[in-house]
């Protein structure tokens, strides 16, 4: 968990520090969300609920967001200002998607159809976790090493490709179960897969945007 109090005065922090802190907070919430879904797989509904409520109710990022907005609009770095702002808003979108997914997942307590399905869900969650950690790393590298940020984003895209393959297998499996297609279990599992993929898609697009920034600001030899 990120201890925001460690940083006494956010006003004294640079735009880059605030962006990194914001990314850490959102990454922390992503990991909680992923862990929550893992609890769901294990049918540990109490912890599942606790984690997802943490994602929905935690508002620590708002303080960072406010400090960032105060700083960015006063910044004289016009040539990169818009891009800095966009990076921040893309991080903010991750929170919005995560919160949306958490709210949706709390609507029902599902029991997974079989172990293979559970294993594959765990696998895409593993990739999602890695993407989230990598993305946080890439965002932190924007300020210090654009080549590194670019390379990390390449990995994210690769991980996202692997997730896509598992997504098809999961959907195939889901549609071939002998169950009512209007049942809550079917609809919930479909929404779960799509929700996870939506989050992964957004992070992949964000990674592509970081690559765009890297090529814009750094001339690769």
């Amino acid at each position, binding site marked *: 968990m990120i201890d925001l109090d460690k940083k006494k005065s956010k006003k004294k922090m640079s735009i*880059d520090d605030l962006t990194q802190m914001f990314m850490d907070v959102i990454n922390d919430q992503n990991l909680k969300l992923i862990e929550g879904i893992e609890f769901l797989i294990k049918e540990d509904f109490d912890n599942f609920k606790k984690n997802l409520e943490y994602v929905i109710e935690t508002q620590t990022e708002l303080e960072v967001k406010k400090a960032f907005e105060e700083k960015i609009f006063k910044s*004289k770095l016009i*040539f990169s200002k818009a891009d800095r702002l966009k990076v921040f808003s893309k991080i903010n979108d991750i929170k919005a998607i995560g919160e949306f997914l958490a709210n949706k997942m709390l609507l029902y307590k599902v029991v997974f159809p079989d172990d293979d399905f559970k294993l594959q869900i765990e696998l895409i969650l593993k990739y999602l976790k890695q993407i989230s950690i990598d993305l946080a790393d890439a965002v932190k590298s924007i300020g210090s090493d654009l080549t590194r940020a670019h390379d990390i984003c390449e990995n994210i895209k690769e991980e996202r490709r692997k997730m896509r393959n598992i997504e098809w297998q999961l959907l195939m499996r889901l549609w071939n179960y002998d169950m009512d297609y209007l049942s809550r279990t079917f609809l919930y599992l479909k929404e779960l897969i799509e929700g996870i993929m939506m989050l992964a898609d957004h992070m992949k697009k964000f990674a592509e945007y970081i690559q765009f920034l890297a090529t814009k600001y*750094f001339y690769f030899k």
Partner: protein
Amino acid sequence: MAFEYEFAAILIIVLIVLAFGLSFSIGANDETCAPLAAAGTLKFKIVLIIGGAAIAFGTIFFSEGVASLVGQKILGPGIKYTVFMLLAVLISAIIWLIIGSRAGIPLSSTHSLIGSIFGVVIVYAMFSGGIDPETAFNWEKLGGVVLSWFLSPLLGLVGTYLLYKIIDKLYLSKKKGLNEIEKSEKNFAWALVLAIIFAELWVGANSAEALGILYALYSNGDLTIIGYYFYVVICALLAFLGLFIAGRYVIKNLASQLTDARPSDGFIIQLSSAIILMFCTVIFSVPVSHSHVIVFCIIGMNMAKKKEVDYGKLGKMFIFWVLTFPMAAILAGLIYFGFISFGIV
């Protein structure tokens, strides 16, 4: 006799007013400050004041060489401008610039002015002055001016290319992250202030259109030396006001499109163009087109960065550039021939 004298005096006043108008338009059309406004280092008003003051300073203290070339030295021995010749030159130059603006091509006012002078002087020599057209010009000076029009943009391209490569190799390429890049660009934004002042100084000094006319009036005895310098100061103030009052819209518009541009790019482009303008003004005293030099500096920068260059657009521009001199000459010649035909001269 008294009527002729009054008429000539009125024409001189008209020429001086047109020279004032040209000075104002030099400031009004000058977009040199745009990268500085885009960088956001200084307040917009301060940018305008700095730019305008530098133009005015350059006009007052460094313009005489170019003005004397346009207003006297370009002509052959025994030939002097008359007020009607100067009037035809100005009318033609203005018409050709309006045509250029309508076509959306950034034409050079310098090229159109020299072209107009060429046309008028040739017609004068053939039909009115009784002078052999071959001796109507100081061909060495005129040749130097025309040669500088080709060389200055090329030097701008090569200079910017090399300057960028050197700065990139020694400094820019060592900046790996956005924080470092931003920090170095912050420093470049301040260096850009100096580069813009330097560039504006030579823009003012090399903008010979108005001062060439005034020098011509001085050289044929219509103005005294004190009168000439008095009007130079007025022209300098008008260039300042032109930039401050009307130029702000051009600068604001261009600056809004340059917010993503790096101050280091602006610094390199402006420094290269300023050095070329300085050499042309101080060493060779030739009027060159600032816009042509800048366009080629930008091309040099794009080539150094391996960015795409729009050769189609450039080709269209080049055709207009080449056409400016002969077209302005023909137009001015026809206007002056009209003056002769109607017995005005």
